[in-house]
């Protein structure tokens, strides 16, 4: 007689109408394939854990986003937010789809140049631009989005020395009715700081005011806040036109559109509740079109959307290390994915799906990572099918920030592969090894030898 498939024995007390934090079952089918490539084959060949990026999904997302805006507004430009995911293969996919580069440091600026992005199509944001960064940005004709007055004066000085005009915009922060208000970046709209900075730029002979920029927050769940922001930037642009007869070329609405991930503490799944890209597009474009811009003088609309374009394009594959039970009887499962490579597990209740068939039986489970640190919790409470040691899991929607904010801590960072549109798998980042880390270290002579 052929042996049956093994599943660990489970007994579950029936507690009708007893609410708990684990919620109801969410996984109904295993995720055995990503873009028609078997998860098992990927792990067998590239080891576990493994990040898997879908080129097809990236291209689909950016095309859908462009369509949402271009159907509603005549001049639209996306700029890929490097900090969200600056793997060259990812950046170049977005550049092939027509996106400019949006960077927030000299390092990211160099990465964009290295990716062969023309300097005039790099938007340089952020509060920390060194003099060297500013010189480089001026030299490459980049769009410098000024964050504070010290930066404005530095640009004035460095552009004068370089005898070259700097193309600038200011970042404007404002009350859009959401909390918290992001007023640490840029110049405030309501108290007049923004207007003061604009006056300084307009009087400068070495700065050209190209546009206005805002970025009202992150993982925004209210499209209306973008409508308020677009209205305030439009007012500023029209005031500049009236006072200086100067038309700003673009309005940059930044990023912050929510992806479909589940924010911790949210009652309903993000996939059902979070606004679509069309809702954000409608809020922004209708405000700009209804403002006092003349129809033939509408500014270019720039979007720096990151998370909403890349989050669902990446999966993190992992393996079950062990099943245990806590002192209070809760089931725990330890997987080989830690918070050091899944930073977003601090913000999201990531969807975890087994990669092999399972039965209808589930268990309330705490999912821990492999780190010998108490903070290494991937899911505090999730109702999961029964997993055995060695089973594989797929953590979904991990494309934003994890591959930039991850850290080498206790374990080394794993490989990243990209599945292209022809289902071919490419390693786009190798796994780290000890020698690479040791290259950064120096041992003083007196510490080289010891006897134990």
């Amino acid at each position: 007689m052929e042996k049956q498939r093994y599943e660990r024995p489970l007994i579950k007390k029936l507690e009708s109408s007893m609410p708990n934090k684990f919620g109801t079952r969410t996984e109904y089918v295993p995720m055995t394939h990503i873009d028609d490539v078997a998860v098992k084959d990927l792990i067998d060949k590239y080891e576990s854990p493994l990040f898997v990026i879908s080129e097809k999904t990236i291209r689909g997302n950016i095309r859908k986003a462009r369509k949402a805006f271009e159907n509603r507004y005549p001049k639209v430009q996306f700029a890929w937010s490097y900090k969200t995911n600056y793997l060259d293969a990812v950046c170049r996919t977005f550049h092939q789809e027509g996106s400019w580069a949006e960077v927030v440091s000299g390092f990211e600026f160099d990465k964009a140049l290295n990716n062969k992005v023309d300097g005039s199509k790099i938007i340089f944001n952020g509060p920390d631009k060194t003099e060297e960064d500013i010189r480089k940005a001026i030299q490459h004709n980049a769009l410098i989005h000024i964050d504070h007055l010290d930066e404005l004066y530095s640009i004035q000085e460095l552009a004068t020395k370089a005898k070259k005009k700097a193309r600038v915009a200011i970042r404007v922060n404002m009350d859009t009715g959401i909390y918290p208000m992001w007023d640490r970046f840029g110049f405030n709209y309501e108290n007049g700081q923004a207007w003061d900075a604009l006056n300084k730029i307009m009087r400068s002979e070495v700065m050209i005011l190209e546009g206005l920029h805002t970025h009202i927050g992150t993982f925004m769940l209210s499209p209306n806040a973008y409508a308020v922001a677009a209205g305030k930037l439009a007012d500023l642009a029209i005031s500049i036109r009236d006072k200086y007869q100067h038309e700003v070329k673009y309005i940059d609405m930044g990023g912050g559109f929510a992806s479909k991930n589940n924010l911790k503490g949210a009652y309903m799944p993000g996939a059902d509740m979070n606004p679509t890209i069309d809702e954000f597009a409608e809020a922004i474009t209708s405000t700009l079109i209804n403002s006092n811009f003349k129809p033939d003088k509408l500014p270019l609309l720039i979007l720096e959307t990151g998370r909403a374009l890349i989050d669902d394009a990446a999966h993190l594959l992992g393996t079950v290390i062990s099943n245990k039970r806590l002192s209070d009887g809760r089931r725990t499962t330890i997987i080989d994915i830690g918070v050091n490579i899944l930073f977003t597990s601090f913000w999201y209740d990531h969807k975890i799906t087994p990669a092999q068939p399972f039965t209808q039986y589930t268990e309330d489970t705490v999912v821990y990572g492999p780190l010998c640190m108490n903070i290494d919790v991937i899911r505090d409470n999730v109702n999961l099918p029964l997993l055995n040691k060695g089973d594989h899991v797929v953590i979904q929607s991990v494309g934003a920030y994890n591959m930039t904010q991850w850290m080498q801590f206790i374990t080394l960072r794993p490989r990243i592969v990209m599945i292209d549109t022809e289902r071919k798998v490419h390693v786009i980042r190798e796994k780290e090894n000890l020698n690479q880390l040791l290259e950064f270290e120096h041992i003083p002579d007196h510490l080289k030898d010891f006897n134990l």
Partner: protein
Amino acid sequence: MHIKSDVAISDSGFVFVPATGESFTVNPIGAAIIHMLKENKSVEEVSKQIFENYKTDMATVEKDMNDFVAMLKQYSLIDTND
């Protein structure tokens, strides 16, 4: 080790304790284990039977049996006179 004599288990894996009114569900392998324990088989005998019937290794069976029996104890389904 014995399952309490008044614990009832259906073929579909529904466990009912008349004394307390509590009810539980078990998966097929859990049901098989409870049935065998009710037949007064020892944990070792049950483990061996599971190993022979399912695609797994003995270490996994022993580990999961320990956990399952601990849960049976926690839910007071084991006769404490044992």
